[in-house]
Structures are given as C-alpha cells and as structure tokens.
C-alpha cells in the first residue's frame, strides 16, 4: 500500500464507497435529503429506515467480501465461498426449524440470533467432519468438500421441514431471500462493535497469511504455525459470515466475487487485496440495494437478484480478461 500507484487507487475506492453510502441514504421510494432537519418525514425515514439499512449493507458487504478473501486464500481455491462452508445453509435450517416450532412468529432480532447459532454450529460441524485440526492443516480443500456436502444435507432437511410445515415456509420466505431493509436501530447497534472487531481481526490476519503464499515448507521455516494460522483464519471468516447472515439473511455471491475484485486490482498482496475485497463487497451491496429499491418502486426487488445482476457481468469481464483466475 506504500506504492504510489496504490494511493490513488485507494482514494478512488474510498470515494466510491462514500458515494454509495450517500446514495443509499438519500435514494428510496422517496428521494430524501440526507441532512434533513429533525421532525420532518425525511428525518423520520432517515433515522428509522435509511441509516440502519445502510449500516447493515456496509457491514454485510464488507464482512462477506473479507470472509470470502480469507477463505479463498486459506484454501488456495478461488471457488471457496462462505456458502460452501454450509454456513448459510446452517443459518437457514436453524431459522426454519425455529419458525416451524414456535406458536407465533418471533422478532427479526431473535431470528438473527438463531441464524448465527445455526451458522456457527454448521461451520464447526463442517470443520469437525472434514477431519478437524490435523486434516485441515494438510488438506484445506477437504473442508470445502465437507462443507458443501453438509450444505446439501441441511438444505434437504430445510426443504423437508418447509414441505411438512407450510406455515414455516410463509414465515421464512422473506427472510430466506436476504434483505437489508427494516432492521431496527436497536438491532444494528448491538452488532456494531462485534462487526468492527471481526473486520479488524480479518485485516490483521493478512500479513501473516501472506506467508502461506510462499509455500508451506518455507512458512514453517519462517516460524509460522501453519495449522494454527489456518484455524484462526477460518474462525474469523466463520464469525464474519455468521454476523452477515444474522443481520441480512443468506446473501449469496458477494463472498465469491468481492475477493476477485481485490485480486484483480492489486494482485496477490494480501492486506491491500483484503481491504479492497471488503470495500468492493460493501460498494456492490450498497449499489445493488439502492437499485433494488428504485427499479420497481414502490415495491422492491429482492436484493439478491440485483447483486447477481450487477455482479455477474463484472465477474464475467474479469473472467475473460484473466486467462487464469
């Protein structure tokens, strides 16, 4: 990041992020002034809807982008996606089971806690089933495979519950589509500190993880405990994904493609590439969310579809430009 080429790049990204935040604050069914005086309808909308919504989008976008970057580095596989660890499937399963058991739908905040529990339990289970610490040190790809299989199994279980308890389907359909809207200010406040800590922890991992890129044997000779490092990295990534799914429900694709942006812009230098992965995740998600609000206003599109529609073309351009990703 010390290179001269780096500074304008990061300034540009910061500017884009600021622009995205501003857009998210002011554009919706109504266009509002983000600096409206209190007491007006604009101010009510800003505080009760736009600010928490923007905060959730930034946190989830950055968290998933960073988690994806960490996982792709640790597993040395550009296909590694938080979804493949079974985390989203675990969260969805937990939420659907709870919704099928309760006699009244719980609040969004409670569903968030349920989702995190499901996500983290599944991540841990995938880790254990893949052979635990020893195997993970040697064969990180195995984790992806067992996470994938676990995701399929949990997805099947979820669908069975939904088929047998149609009430759970109605109640969970919106949550399962993923959204940043209508999270309460209180809920967002609770998540603020842990999210920041997790993001910082992820960035802090970068210099050490760089060692992995030079190869395992060399890293050992540099005095790095590769196994512990991988486990620490996995824990941080799982934490970030758990936070994201708790706030917004399952959001696909961001964790997969944001790291590609990072790598495309700065290559294999990990810290700048992690920062860019987080920033581009946030920017992608913010713009997608703004578009989701406007395209069919006063209705909204599910944000996942806009993320995919914005993300896929970029992704394909990257794919064509780089012979090997």
């Amino acid at each position, binding site marked *: 990041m010390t290179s001269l080429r780096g500074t304008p790049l990061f300034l540009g990204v910061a500017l884009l992020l600021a622009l995205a935040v501003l857009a998210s604050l002011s554009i*919706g*069914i*109504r266009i509002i002034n983000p600096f409206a005086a209190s007491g007006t*309808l604009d101010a*009510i*909308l800003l*505080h*009760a*809807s736009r600010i928490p919504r923007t905060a959730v989008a930034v946190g989830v976008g950055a968290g998933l982008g960073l988690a994806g970057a960490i996982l792709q580095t640790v597993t040395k596989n550009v296909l590694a996606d938080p979804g493949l660890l079974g985390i989203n499937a675990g969260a969805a399963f937990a939420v659907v089971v709870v*919704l099928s058991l*309760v*006699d*009244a*739908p*719980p*609040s*969004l*905040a*409670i*569903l968030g806690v349920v989702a995190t529990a499901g996500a983290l339990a599944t991540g841990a289970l995938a880790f254990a089933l893949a052979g635990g610490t020893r195997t993970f040190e040697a064969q990180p790809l195995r984790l992806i495979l067992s996470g994938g299989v676990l995701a399929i199994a949990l997805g099947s279980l979820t669908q069975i519950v939904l*088929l*047998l*308890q*149609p*009430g759970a389907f*109605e*109640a*969970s*359909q*919106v*949550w399962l589509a993923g*959204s940043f*809207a*209508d999270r*309460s200010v209180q809920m967002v406040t609770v998540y603020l500190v842990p999210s920041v800590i997790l993001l910082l922890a992820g960035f802090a991992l970068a210099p050490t993880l760089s060692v992995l890129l030079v190869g395992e044997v060399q890293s050992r000779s540099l005095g790095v405990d590769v196994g512990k490092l991988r486990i620490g990295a996995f824990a941080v990534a799982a934490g970030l994904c758990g936070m994201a799914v708790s706030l917004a*429900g399952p959001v696909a694709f961001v964790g997969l493609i944001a790291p590609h942006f990072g790598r495309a812009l700065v290559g294999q230098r990990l810290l700048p590439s992690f920062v860019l992965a987080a920033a581009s995740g946030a920017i992608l998600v913010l713009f997608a969310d703004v578009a989701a*609000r406007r395209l069919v206003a*006063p*209705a*909204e599109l599910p944000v996942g579809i806009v993320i995919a529609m914005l993300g896929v073309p970029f992704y394909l351009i990257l794919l064509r430009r780089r012979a090997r990703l």
Partner: protein
Amino acid sequence: MIRPALAAVFTFAASASIACDGLEVTQETLVGGTICAPSEPQRIVTLDPYYSLLMAAELDLPVIGTALSGDSLPSQVEGVWDTDPELVGQMTSPDLEAILALKPDLIIGDAYSQAEIMEQLSEIAPTALVDTADWKTYLRTVASVAGADSTADEKLAAYQTAVAETAAALPEGATVSFLRIVPGGFQVYVAGPSAYAPMAVLTELGIERPPFETVSDDTVLKRPTMEGLLELQGDVMIYTIGGAHHDGDAKALEDEVTSNPIWQALPSVKAGRAYRVEPTHWMGFGGLDSAYEIIADIRDIYGLPE
C-alpha cells in the same frame, strides 16, 4: 399479455368426453373441462385441507379421506363427520397407495398442487381438480361435481343477504388498508380480479382500498418494506401477524413494527384506528364460515351491533 399466452401453451387441453353413466359435469373451472362423477358420491377423498376439505364440510359431503398441510386436521372440521377422514399424506405429495386403499368414488383437489399426479388419480376415481381463484366459484364447482348444487345455492344466498345488510350499515366511502406482518417483511393482500378471498369479501362489503392496494391484474399480494407502508393510506388499518397455524401473541414482532416511527406516522395509526385481527380466517380462509367471521370482525371495527 404474456401470461394468457403462456397459459394457453402450458395448460391441459380439454379431453374428449366419453359416455358417462353418472353425473357428467362440464365446468371451465375443472382441469380437463369435463368429468364423469358419480351421481351420489359416497366416498370422497379431498387432496387439500383448505378449500377442498373445508368446503366439502360446509356442503355436508361424505369425506372419507384427506391430504393435510402440516400434521393435523383443521379445527373447523372436528366433529363434522362421525369418523374423521383418513389421512392420505401431505397435499403437496399425497400417497397414491393410501388413496387407492380407501377406494374413493370421487377425488377433489386444487389445480395447482395436484396437477402432477392427475393422471394416476384419474385411474383411481373421477378426479375434480378445481382451477379458480374465486372462493365462491370454487364452492359452486365442488358442489356441482358432488351433486350438491342446491345446498350451495341456499348457503350462498344467505351469505349475500348478510353481506348486503352489513354493506348498508357501513359508513359511506370507508377505506381500509390490510397488512400482514411476517418476520422480516410485510404482505399487503390487494383487491383485484385474483384477490385472496378475505379481500374479495371486503370488496363485496363495499369497502374501498387505497390505490396501492387496488390492482387490475392478477396480483394477489405486494411486499412493501417499512417505507412502503406509507402507501397504506386507508382510514382504518387492519393487520394480522403470522399465519393461520399461529396461536401465540407474537408480541416481540408486533412491537418491533409498531415502535417504528414510520408506523406511527401512518394516518390510521395516528387516528388510533389500527386493529389487529386473528390470522385464523384472514389468512386461513376456508369458505362461508371464514367469510362470516370476517364480516363479524368488520362489524366489530366499525362498532355495528353483532
């Protein structure tokens, strides 16, 4: 215009009729157009626990088996028959072996969920899959295949009288917004050609809906966000939480919504005219009983005598 075109391409062609020694019923609202039903069915199996089962119960039809949605019979049919109907599995995938074992003489289901197994069902017994969004048409179609037209006519006439009575008593130009709250989202059931039954009842009562809640296409529901709720400009807000299978109070979810300043900025809420109703009939509509319950709720909200 794409929907009717697609529908024409993808729906069943009407099958040619063959000689029928029972009751030949031709209805546009039946999949296949025409079925040859027994003139007095004795052993009916229904394939969904909603309209088919509940309306069969209202028409006093002999139902010996039914598919479920969830794990128990709807409370409305408790005690309707001397013996409860046998269960033949979930409505999404009824067990053909179980239906065979019951030796039914008529099978009634809905066009959307059971079209997949229409062929096998028809080999077991005459099968009426009803294809309409309008609940009264559904009731009449079920009645016509089971030879219960007169019962249906009688009951619907009584219902129309009740509707006219309440409609006359309601204030002129009453506008109502209707909202369902689910975790993480809202559903607004609209008034229109394919309206969900309770909304059709509101329309019959002469109740108007704000522009956002009125459509001319086949939309059944809209899913606004909290900001979109500002479009719900009815003088009265009727809201429900969860679905027909929920009987808890959902206080936390309700508070999450009603404590939001945007909710409190709604005209109906400001005027103290937001009413919570039970989802049992509003979200689990099953025919005449449900329609009467909805009318009773409306009379209650507008302070009319019971």
